[in-house]
């Protein structure tokens, strides 16, 4: 008799589904975003980062799933047998474009004077979604810049509130220095109990938050326009090595 199949954890079924008319196979515990990426289908996203817990806030990865009246975020939706998914349609493209425009108008993303110019995920998204101008009025609210940390700086004018910094600091570094305060448009990422970053007791100065920040909101000091390049690729490796995934 052949040996029984053994699974390292609890048993996970394998399913097949279609994404944009491509037949794909997937493990039941995978998300649509993961499976799409494995099969070369790119779904725009901003708050998602491989190696971090899912947040579901940017709404860029919304997809159409047959049989569901609502759009579903690909990062938080698990695959299911026979699912029929569409990641790109006229409507989805229009929604994504508007969301990126809303982000640009919300705070002060002046790329030409930003240290992340040219290495910014928001810029890339604008290009990808075909944003060539912003139709909603710019808010022009002034946000604070905190330079009190020896090595890093946070510029809230460029923050998109993706909470990657909050998650990496909590989940990976274990310091939980960052959090979010306030409501609605008044939301802000804060260090400790809304103290200046430089005075934080919990910050280990590891710089992970800077590396995962998609824009020029969290940067290394001493960088000039366009010089701030980030490398968040260490994350999936780190989580895998720790056996957390």
């Amino acid at each position, binding site marked *: 008799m052949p040996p029984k199949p053994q699974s390292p954890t609890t048993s996970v079924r394998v399913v097949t589904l279609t994404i944009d008319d491509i037949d794909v196979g997937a493990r039941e515990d995978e998300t649509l975003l993961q499976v799409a990426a494995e099969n070369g289908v790119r779904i725009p996203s901003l708050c998602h980062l491989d190696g971090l817990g899912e947040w579901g806030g940017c709404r860029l990865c919304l997809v159409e799933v047959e049989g569901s009246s609502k759009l579903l975020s690909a990062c938080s939706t698990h695959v299911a047998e026979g699912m029929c998914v569409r990641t790109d349609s006229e409507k989805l493209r229009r929604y994504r474009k508007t969301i990126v425009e809303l982000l640009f108008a919300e705070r002060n993303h002046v790329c030409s004077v930003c240290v992340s110019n040219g290495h910014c995920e928001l810029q890339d998204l604008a290009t990808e979604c075909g944003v060539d101008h912003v139709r*909603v009025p710019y808010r022009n609210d002034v946000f604070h810049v905190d330079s009190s940390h020896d090595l890093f700086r946070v510029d809230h004018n460029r923050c998109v509130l993706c909470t990657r910094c909050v998650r990496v600091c909590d989940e990976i570094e274990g310091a939980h220095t960052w959090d979010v305060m306030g409501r*609605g448009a008044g939301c802000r990422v804060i260090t400790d109990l809304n103290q200046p970053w430089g005075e934080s007791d919990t910050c280990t100065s590891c710089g992970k938050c800077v590396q995962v920040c998609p824009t020029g909101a969290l940067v290394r000091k001493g960088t000039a326009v366009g010089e701030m390049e980030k490398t968040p690729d260490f994350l999936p490796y780190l989580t895998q090595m720790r056996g957390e995934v």
Partner: protein
Amino acid sequence: MQLDDLKARADELRSEAARSHRIRVCLAASCQSSGAGEVCEGFERAVESAGRGDDVEVRRVGCLGLCSAGPLVAVDGRNAAFSELYRHVGPDDVEGLLDSVEGEPVEQLRCPTDVPFFQRQHKVVLENSGLVDPDRIEDYIAQDGYQALVRAVTEMTPEDVLREVQTSGLRGRGGAGYPAGLKWSTVAKAVESPKYVICNGDEGDPGAFMDRAVLESDPHRVLEGMALAAYAVGASRGFVYVRAEYPLAVERLERAIRQATKEGFLGHGVCASPFDFTIELRMGAGAFVCGEETALMASIEGLRGQPRPRPPYPAESGLWGGPTLINNVETLANVPPVVRNGGEWFASIGTPDSTGTKVFALAGRVENTGLVEVPMGITLREIVEEVGGGVPDGRAFKAVQTGGPSGGCIPVELTETSVEYDTLRAVGSIMGSGGMIVMDETSCMVDVARYFMEFCMTESCGKCIPCRAGTVQLHDLLVKIADRRATSADLALLEELCEVVQMTSLCGLGQTAPNPVQSTLRYFRHEYEERLVETPPGEFLVPLDVVDT
């Protein structure tokens, strides 16, 4: 405890109460704020000094219904000889009313109850409201309280209870109208444990106070409903989530939980059966979004009150990852009568699709403001013109808004629409949790839309981009239109943004925030168009202040 013991106790309590005259003083929040506390103490002192403590009982009760006429006092003669309701009672009226217990009503204070406001109502949820003292479990028992629970745990299986709720056709009263029986059976089917039951008493819709009235006037009903739900789905821990702005509800709930635990209706081995169920209270700190179920659960867990994407739904993975049943206060308050009288009885009230009754908080330009409980299927016009007494000051009735910031405005031409989940949805509004605002000809619909958008904008949790940034833009556009600074391009942008925010927001707050705009655009588009201009007044780019570090 057996059902017969409880029934005997109820009979005894009733006959004991019938032996004296009774003065019921409404001490719900609304009457309290107009001086009912003083009136009640006045009665207590007067009864004592007249030495009538033995034959006149002063009872502190919950909402008597017509909040706009408070403080309200009801006087019942011994052996149910007569019952009179009095309005606008002040401390000076105490003596006269005390004398009236013998059967001589005080004419100038009388509040007639043979009018449509009272006659057209059908009380199920509020059946005990105004009759029982919310601080006394005996009063609830005297109204056959806890009999459904005792019968369930001693004579019925969880499946039996579930079947009654399914037969009743009861749908969620928290806004979306999801069938309660279906939700319960999903949680009952879940294999993981522990399971939880949550009562959603966050009630954040502006102007709505249905749940507050239930919690303040008849808290034991909600506890019994939760215990029945827990028995049906197999949960042993429950939470009531009440907003901290309802201190009276919190106080009464706390006392009710203590009393019910002491009497054995809650706690270890409910009514000497093997079923355990405890209830804890959690207070919300005033965020509207914490009424959304996933945000509410995060809040109970001690996290920031922010929604998360669903699925997974709470029934599958809720509080601390366990299968969780979450229902609105009014939904749960309907459960004891459903189990006591049977699901068929409940289904015979209302319409086939929307069974039972609904409590509405009637407000705005209407004669009788306050809480009304009406059978489903009644038309909006009947509620406004008959129950509500119509629009005052001879003005014309223009529209009625239901569903608060998630709902829509229904114009007067459509007020023959019956109050049912699907018919209200078809005319662009929703049943909602029970806010109902009547508007007359002087109300400006752009203003109404702007008001609700401002509410959503300030209450947005900020997690997702379309709601956080979109509601701000929508609000600005509405202000611009109201101020006659907008062009037709702005109106087009308004409509487009409405669609994006509705379709892409994470939770119900953002998804429904455009509803008031869309429904007023549907029926009152001319009010928007009238305010548009050809060329906008000159606009300047605001220069950025130099950013300080």
